[in-house]
């Protein structure tokens, strides 16, 4: 792409093509950080500066109260991800980062679905919830609310099944992940 100082006029299509680097596989980054104010801003800012759109983000305490874990999912070709993890390592409050391999990782998220339900469809929705091992946690005269835990795929599967009834609202936590077997995340 043209140097800032040259006269060449840049076409919008070329600019878009040059910026189009978010095409790789999904990545799950597990980041251990010091439990201090402002740390999440530093981590999130680093992604924003490189034009990464964070897919999901989950933050919570760990077994050690001075340390929190941030789990981030995002799309990216492997090279830019590599740059971002190296830059993350440079943040003074970041203790450890793992780019989790999908086959060696168990990832789960929770979602709440508020679905339109009249008398007829209510039974059908309850049946679907049963198949997906979801739980009905609230019922009103016009809606049913379902709690579901599982992989992102499973949650998206359920979402596509219940859309036909009218999805009033959906809330997802974002994935959390842990390494399989004895190895540490």
């Amino acid at each position, binding site marked *: 792409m*043209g*140097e*800032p*100082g*040259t*006269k060449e006029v840049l076409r919008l299509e070329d600019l878009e093509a040059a910026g189009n680097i978010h095409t790789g596989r999904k990545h799950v980054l597990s980041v251990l*950080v*010091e439990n201090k*104010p*402002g740390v999440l*801003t*530093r981590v999130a*800012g680093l992604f924003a*500066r490189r034009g990464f759109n964070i897919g999901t983000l989950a933050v919570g305490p760990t077994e050690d109260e001075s340390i929190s874990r941030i789990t981030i999912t995002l799309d990216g070709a492997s090279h830019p991800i*590599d*740059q971002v993890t*190296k*830059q993350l*390592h*440079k*943040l*003074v*409050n*970041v*203790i*450890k980062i793992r780019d989790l391999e999908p086959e060696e990782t168990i990832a789960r998220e929770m979602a709440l679905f508020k679905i339109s339900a009249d008398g007829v469809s209510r039974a059908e929705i309850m049946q679907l919830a049963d198949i997906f091992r979801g739980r009905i946690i609230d019922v009103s005269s016009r809606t049913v609310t379902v709690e579901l835990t599982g992989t992102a795929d499973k949650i998206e599967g359920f979402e596509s099944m219940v859309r036909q009834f009218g999805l009033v609202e959906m809330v997802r936590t974002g994935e959390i992940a842990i390494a399989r077997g004895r190895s540490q995340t």
Partner: protein
Amino acid sequence: MRAVDAMMECLKAEGVDAVFGIPGGANLPTYDALYDAGIRSILCRHEQGAGHAAEGYAKASGRVGVALATSGPGATNLVTPIADAMLDSVPTVFITGQVRTDLLGTDGFQEADVMGITMPVIKHSFQVLDPREIPHMIHEAFHVARSGRPGPVLVDIPQDLSRADIPYDPSEAQKVDLPGYKNFAEGNAKQIRIAAKALANARRPILYVGGGVVNGNAAEELTELAVAGGFPVTCTLMGLGAFPGTHEQWVGMLGMHGTRTANYAMDNADLIVAIGARFDDRITGKMSEFAPRAKFVHIDIDPAEISKNVPAHIPIVGDTKLILPKLTAEYRALEADRARMDEWWQQLRRWQEEWPLKFEGPKDGDIPPQRMIQALYSVTGGEAILTSDVGQHQMWTAQHFHFTKPRRWINSGGLGTMGFGLPSAIGAKVAQPDELVVCVAGDGSLVMTCQELATAVEHDVDVKVFIMNNGYLGMVRQWQELFWDKRYSSVDMGSSPDWVKLAEAFGARGMRVDQDADVEDAMREAIGHEGPVVLDVRVRKEENCYPMIPAGAAARDMVG
């Protein structure tokens, strides 16, 4: 003890003998403590000046530079020096006042979220939330600023907390507790051995040296490696002085305005050993055609630099000062035959003969800008610390002044901050009072921070400011001439200000010279004068800085 008094003790324990800054409402307690702390307080005339002075102090001495500012506008004025120190890896600590804790986040008077504003351009920052943390945070700030890849660190202290009475235990305060902060030092022994072998096998090697060798105080170690192997050496703008510019193995600076020999050498090399350098776009030119025949050894203290721009075949992460002697020893042990590089040296010598730096000499007694730098070199014998602003004068100084020692060339490389020269010269002179410090200024740049002349005069900081005055924003004019059909849009600075009068208004001496024959004498007189001098050197107006890799072109396509 008041928290601010404890802070002064911490600064002294860190070896701070001078700080640069301006007091205001939110850092009144800090300045009250500074009043009789035994630390020299340099009152600057703008916080940007204070920040660049702290950088100049750090670059000239290798010690951590400190700048103080109040909240709000004081703090936001530090943003440019912070970003500058980040891009050039300058060890600096910035201590800002902040509004009282009960006003935080309420848009209180002179409140700005300086933590948030500086976050993308800073190595690390500390917001004080408990006054007992202040001594500890000051020491951690210095530790982070100077260790690993150096950089700027901010400590933001709400006014009420800085007045608190706190317990202070010096040894407890100095314990660093940063579990996530790790640095690499030693360098992997196996990688070093592989790099030595690659050097021993290379027929067309070159050492490509950056500011990391200056920062790492590894100039001697670098020279030893270069001499042991008889390798050609080129430096980046930031690396100048890491290797003697008068040495027979020196092939000149590389990059956009580097020598043809250095750039052609990169283009033809079979092995490039990058040492504390980061393959900036001003070095590589067109990336897809950069050094197509070379394998890369990349030695850097920052793992994030490895393979960032150019894939490294042999990466070595660590401190140049520790790695270079090991690499030299491993290389010596291989007893490589120097004759393998004979052809390479013959080629380099041919390029040097064919493409020396050249320019048209004086016409009707006018002063070619390059001549001004040659005159400065001849007058000083190379024995001076030079600072500069950003633009043509910076490039001509880099080309024509032969730096023989590190920490003698202080300029803004990464951020390219106009106005950097004068305040950084003040900082350098405060750090190294026995050295001659000359700011080679651009007329477009100097006007941005010329208020610091008052600082120099008031504090008896004897800096010499030699303006390369061509009445233009010269580098921009050059680009408009070469690439934008000579449409000179807003680059003519006219003849204002009258620099002699301006210097005198600030209480400095003002001088002017416009004949080539008088330049050296005028410089001698300025240097001989006791106290700050501004020498307005009226150089040829429309001279272009060559050679040049045109934007987006490859090194082999240099022009001029």
